[in-house]
């Protein structure tokens, strides 16, 4: 018989406490959406006496909610597409075509990883305004892609360099062009890294608040982060409605996270530890 393992028991106990601290506010948020304001005030953290679906229903029936979600999705998908294409194309040049100054150009793009978006946010606002992009999704998409470039070029270049050189040479002998190799070989063979970068760019864009905040004024173009803050402003004391709203916005993020966690972890370990 095994003796009582106090080490393992203590380990599990600590893990459960920390896990409870993580899950407690999330559960309270989820449950809060089923309660009336009065019940929420009296018993904020217990199971609801009556499961009321009307507050969730209100949010789901609110066309603004769907417009926020759609805007977020649109912005995130286009940001992913533009970041992947421009980043991968640039990284391909750095990986396959050495020319005088190419190293400097790459260092220039990599510097972007260090520059905080926040530091340039005021001139960026002026720039976006002068380009006529205020209140358009492009005013969010293009700067997001630009600030994501350094990170993606670094990961792409590292990955492209690891693709066997002989593959490129064999294809050259078979008669492929440099551009053809990129589309027919580099991209299809790089799905792991494309997936990783895509997931990161997507999550960053989906969760972005500061940039939409300065670029978008019209609530019709709001992503959900802005929409949520607006909703909170409207229902300042009705926490049950706000909590229902928050829960519904988190659902896609959580589903996405569970589906893509492999890529997220790969990105963290590949991008972070090597960085």
């Amino acid at each position, binding site marked *: 018989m095994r003796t009582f393992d106090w080490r393992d028991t203590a380990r599990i106990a600590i893990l459960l406490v920390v896990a409870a601290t993580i899950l407690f506010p999330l559960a309270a948020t989820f449950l809060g959406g089923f309660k009336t304001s009065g019940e929420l005030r009296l018993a904020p953290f217990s199971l609801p006496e009556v499961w009321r679906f009307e507050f969730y229903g209100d949010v789901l029936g609110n066309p603004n909610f769907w417009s926020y979600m759609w805007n977020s999705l649109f912005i995130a998908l286009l940001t992913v597409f533009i970041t992947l294409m421009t980043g991968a194309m640039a990284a391909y040049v750095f990986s396959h075509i050495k020319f005088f100054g190419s190293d400097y150009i790459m260092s220039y793009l990599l510097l972007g990883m260090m520059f905080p978006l926040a530091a340039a946010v005021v001139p960026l606002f002026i720039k976006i305004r002068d380009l006529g992009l205020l209140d358009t999704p492009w005013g969010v998409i293009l700067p997001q892609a630009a600030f994501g470039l350094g990170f993606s070029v670094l990961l792409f270049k590292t990955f492209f360099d690891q693709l*066997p050189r*002989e*593959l490129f*040479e*064999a*294809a*050259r*002998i*078979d*008669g*492929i062009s440099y551009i*053809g190799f990129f589309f027919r*070989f580099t991209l*299809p*063979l790089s799905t792991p890294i494309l997936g990783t970068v895509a997931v990161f760019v997507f999550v960053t864009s989906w969760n972005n608040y500061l940039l939409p905040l300065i670029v978008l004024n019209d609530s019709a173009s709001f992503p959900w982060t802005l929409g949520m803050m607006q909703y909170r402003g409207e229902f300042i004391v009705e926490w049950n409605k706000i909590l229902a709203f928050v829960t519904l916005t988190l659902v896609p993020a959580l589903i996405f996270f569970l589906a893509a966690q492999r890529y997220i972890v790969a990105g963290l370990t590949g991008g972070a530890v090597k960085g």
Partner: protein
Amino acid sequence: MAEVRLNNLTKSYGGVEVIPPLDLTIPDKSFSVLVGPSGCGKSTLLRMVAGLEEVTSGQITIGGEDVTDADPAKRGIAMVFQSYALYPHMSVADNIGFALKLAKTPKDEIRTRVKEAAAILQLEDYLDRKPKALSGGQRQRVAIGRAIVRQPKVFLFDEPLSNLDAALRAQMRVELAELHEKLGATMIYVTHDQVEAMTMADQIVVLKKGEVQQVGAPLDLYNTPENTFVAEFIGMPKMNLLNGATAARFGGDKVGVRPEHLEISSDNPIVSGEVVHAEYLGADTIAHVQSAEAGRVVVRLDGSHPLQRGSEITLSPRPGCLRIFDANGQSLGAA
């Protein structure tokens, strides 16, 4: 007519000359093997013929046409790589037919030609598989199939067998030699393995530090090496080189004799010494003999030969099998 000529070809990397001016002719329909130790420039040379390395100066012609600066795809060559370089995301059929597809060959014709190539290489059953699902030998065949299907004037092989195990390598050597006969194309084959060179080549080119040491048929190189480098490189176990008084007797700086050309006899003694080690291989016995005047000598004896460690033996060369070299290692002829 697909003779390959290298005229005054050189290659430098950032000012360091790895190939000094070099001239070489690969005759039409020959199986030429470039052989040498690693770093001798044989792969660089092959890659320059392929167009994968830029030529620093000089000229390459294939079938009389100057291809020095031509695109790799437009030289009429095909190449088989050491790692096979199969396209991992394509099926075997697509791998083999890829060059034809890029050349905008009609689909039907691609299909027929891929089938033909697959038939030659016994790959018909694997055409729909991805390279991942193939064994090493099958991958090797796909790589060759990819070359065959283009019907190139010249095949280039870059150490294609070095990733295979010994048994498979022996088998592929035979298959490649047969393929050469069947296709009748010019083949240039790079290896560091002199056995591959000896067994497959019509013509061997021995390279050292970017310089051609000797060019010739396998047995010419074996029988009449032009210098000590070739003498030692070709043949296994390698040729014994004796110097000092022994060499002086024959009027040279060094005298070379192959292990298999020595016998235990005192008719014409050249070396005598003590057997320090013997390897019994069954068919042969390889004896290592320590001699006072000539150092360590290796001799290949009949497998049935009873030989005791520590016994003293005297060795004589077969007539005409001694090679004499001068102080620079150049051949002075036979004795």
